[in-house]
């Protein structure tokens, strides 16, 4: 099966910032993304769990998108504008996709 090289960007961010991030990604030309719930974790800001939150705004979400490697810089610039001052993690890994024209 023919596969194509792509980049998988995973951004874990506060739920309250979700729409701001996805708006920025869309403006940067990202054609699709997936939003996943985050159940809890631990980091520089301490431990937290979804069950300990009063509202969704206090929780975290994970936004995952796959793009062609030549578009990575534009995406990261757009994402950084939003996440710079906020709690979160941005990671990039190499991956392969079947239908390159979709990314």
């Amino acid at each position: 099966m023919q596969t194509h090289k792509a980049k998988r960007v995973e951004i874990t961010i506060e739920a309250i910032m979700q729409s701001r991030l996805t708006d920025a990604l869309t403006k940067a030309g990202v054609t699709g993304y997936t939003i996943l719930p985050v159940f809890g974790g631990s980091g520089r800001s301490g431990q937290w769990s979804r069950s300990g939150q009063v509202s969704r705004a206090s929780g975290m979400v994970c936004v995952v998108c796959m793009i062609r490697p030549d578009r990575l810089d534009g995406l990261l610039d757009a994402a950084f504008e939003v996440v710079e001052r906020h709690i979160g993690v941005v990671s990039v890994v190499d991956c392969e996709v079947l239908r390159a024209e979709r990314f």
Partner: protein
Amino acid sequence: MDQILSLAATNLLSPIILCFALGVLAALARSDLSFPEAVAKGMSIYLLFAIGFKGGVSVADHGIDARLALSLLAGIVLSFLLPLIAFALLRGMTGLSRLDAAAVAAHYGSISIVTFVAATSVLESSGIASEGYMVAVAAAMEAPAILSALWLISRGQGDGRRMDPELMREIMLNGSIVLLVGSFVIGGITGADGLARIESFIVSPFQGVLCLFLLDMGLVAGRGLREGGAVLRPGPLVFGVIMPVVGSAFGLAAGLLLGLSTGGVALMMVLSASASYIAVPAAMRVALPEANPSIYLTLSLGVTFPFNLTLGIPLYVAVASFATGG
């Protein structure tokens, strides 16, 4: 004095407050008791709808008067003013930075709708009447405090970029406000006839649902206290207990000036004493992300909310009864 203590003791031993205490104790004891997220959300929607609707029906019964407008205005002024007082207290009695102090202060100018609902229930159980439009006052007091906190920060840093229009829209149209105001308007339009049609749904089960909801809130508050308690030093902890009492004094003065009923004065005290833990934390995460959320969430949810529910509400109702001769 005996009468005040007796009223306070009766309120303290009501099922809703005991359910809340059970939740806190269960969380502190690390019990695995928990509510599914969707159930908790469903209960909060039910309670907001019921309290808003009943408030609207009460206004439809008694009519709109100048006192309603003045009460709304007083609520807005208090919400703008209380963060300034909280900020001064925080800077004077705690070692918090200007940024953290402003973020905490915003919470104490805004309100906790759950505390308000619990207080309304306590008043109903005690047979103390209150103005139905206090629901609208509660909604009006949600947002101004956030502007006060942002003003405190921009004044110190010459930074006016904190409040963007999108954030303002999110604050003004947050789900709780839309549901509360919307059901209040529906209750006002449909009046007693509307209430008669859905009474079996929004009146009879109300206390039972509130008990379960407060049990869940007790679990959340207890977990918050357990996880965030370590970040709080004695100064902020003392503030979390003193500030609601200070706020309630302003609410008492406003209620008496407005000539509200005993229940109305008590609710104005509760609103002024309570601290937000839903709308304001979300706004602070967007506008002041550098402020430490562990401090303001633990204070408002883990310290002030339990204080108000267990000791505050009985105290405010007792003081309001004494001050109005009710």
